[in-house]
Each structure stands twice: as C-alpha cells, then as structure tokens.
C-alpha cells in the first residue's frame, strides 16, 4: 500500500494505494528529487576529486590535512 492514514479523532487506520492524481503528484516529486540528487552527487564527486588531487599535489594524507586545519 502507498498511504497509511490515521484519523486523530477516531483512531481509525486506513491503508490504500494512491489515486491517479496522487500517483501523478508522487511521480513528479520523485522525478524532481532525482534531478536534485544527481546534481548533489555530481558536486560531491567533483569535490572529492579536487580534494584528492590537492592532497596528492601537497604530498600529504587526508588525516595530515585535518591535523593542519585543526
């Protein structure tokens, strides 16, 4: 089931699948999230690559870099 709903007044619990409109809304949400996530992952990977390159250029490890920064 897609939705679990509890009524705060009666305590009744309902489980059901999305209606067509709800499914459309949900699919739009998932698609939008994927675009954002892909961008975040790409940015994170680019940052990690740049960091590794800098560490290699400096000839130190990440732990040594942390010591320097602290």
């Amino acid at each position, binding site marked *: *089931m*897609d*939705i*679990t*709903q*509890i*009524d*705060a*007044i*009666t*305590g009744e*619990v309902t*489980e059901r699948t*999305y209606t067509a409109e*709800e499914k459309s*809304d*949900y699919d*739009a*949400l*998932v698609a*939008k*999230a*994927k675009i954002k*996530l892909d961008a*975040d*992952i790409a940015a*994170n990977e680019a940052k990690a690559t740049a960091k590794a390159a800098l560490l290699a250029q400096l000839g130190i490890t990440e732990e040594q870099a942390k010591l320097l920064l602290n």
Partner: protein
Amino acid sequence: MPVKRYNGTDWVTVAGDGIQGPTGPAGASATTVVTTKGDLLTYSTTAARLGVGSNGTVLTADSAEATGVKWAAPAATGASWSQLAVTATTSGTTVTISGLSGYNQLYIQFENVSHNDSIKEFYLRMNADSGTNYNIVNFLIRNAASVSSGTYNAAQTEIYLGRTASSGNTMSGGILINGANSTGKKFFSGFMASVGDLVNSDITQPHISGTYDGTSVISSVSIVTNAPAFDAGNMRVFGSVA
C-alpha cells in the same frame, strides 16, 4: 425641581432622580442603589447594585444570575498541548495523520524515521497539498564544519525534511505550525537531523522556517519519501487549540 419624562402622550413626574426606563414604573434612585467605589447599576426586576469584582476579574454575562451578569476570572487563553496521534512510519511512501482541524498550533515530531533504499529524502506536506504553497527559509549545517548560507525558496511544493544514505540511517526532528486553524497564511518552523546524507558518515541538520499559503485550515499532515518505502520510525502530532 421635579424631573419630567415624556411617556408618549403626556409629561409625567419622575420619582427619585429619573433612573427608570422611558415607559417603566417609577424607579429607584441611582444614588441610593450604587453606593461604593466600583459599583455597577444592574437590573433584574428592579435596579440592583453589583459590587466591583476582585482585581483581574472581568464582567461576564451569566443567565443564571438574577441580574444576568457577574464578575468572573477571564478564560484562559494560553496554549494547552495534548498529543493527538502517533503512527509508525514503517510502510508505504506516504504516512498521514488526519482529523487535525480545530487546533491553532500543531507540532509534528519525526522520530528515527528511515527508508529502505539508498540516498533518498523525506518531505512534509499539509492537507496533501502539492501546490506551490510552501515558502521556505533553509539553513543547512552539514558535518558540523560545513555550514551553508541560508537560502530562501518560494513556491515550493513540499517542505524538505532531510536525506539519508541508506536503510538504518535515520531522520528525527520537529516542525511547529502556527495559525493552523485559520484560512490565512500559516507559519512553520523547526529543525531536523539526519544521520547519513550522501554517505553514511554525513550528518546534516536542516533548520527551516517559512510560510504555507494554503487557504484551508490544516486538517492533515503527511510525511512522504521518494524511496520505495519507509521502514522504521514514528510520526507524532501534538495540538493546542489556542
């Protein structure tokens, strides 16, 4: 000199100092009914004195009183909270608590919520509204040393709560909503903390506040994930009528 009043036909002499109504019987003198500082002149079948109430009391209508009014302590107007519902976030992709109308303030608490996938997010919606009605200020602290500048994003279609990297990573936090029982703008504010963001070692702490433009009173709140399903945790709602 006698005081006269017009009864619709003739001018007649008024007894006392003229306190009676325009067509009523001769009444008592106000100066003989009210005698003490703060006295009020009231009426049942005759004029009656109501002595001043205790400090802080207010004049209150009460049909059980002979004169229909009394002094009483003002009704409490402060917030009084109670738990309205709690439900597990252990299946499906939307968990909703409904039946929330009538509460001006709502507090939604997320307790160790997780999903069953890798790197997926959690969102909050009110009244299942997917319109562009959420205007959000977001301040994100990531891994403590990495602090983002605040961002403002108007016309969002949901409130972002956080992201976790895998099942077993959890998101907890709370959102306070004010003005929930009005048809005007609603204010929300809160913060979350997620263990695991893009990788398991990440810790993110979104601090959010903003306004919700939906014009209906809030009758339900939903947590939504873009993962295949929730797999742990609870959502709990508290409410205050004031």
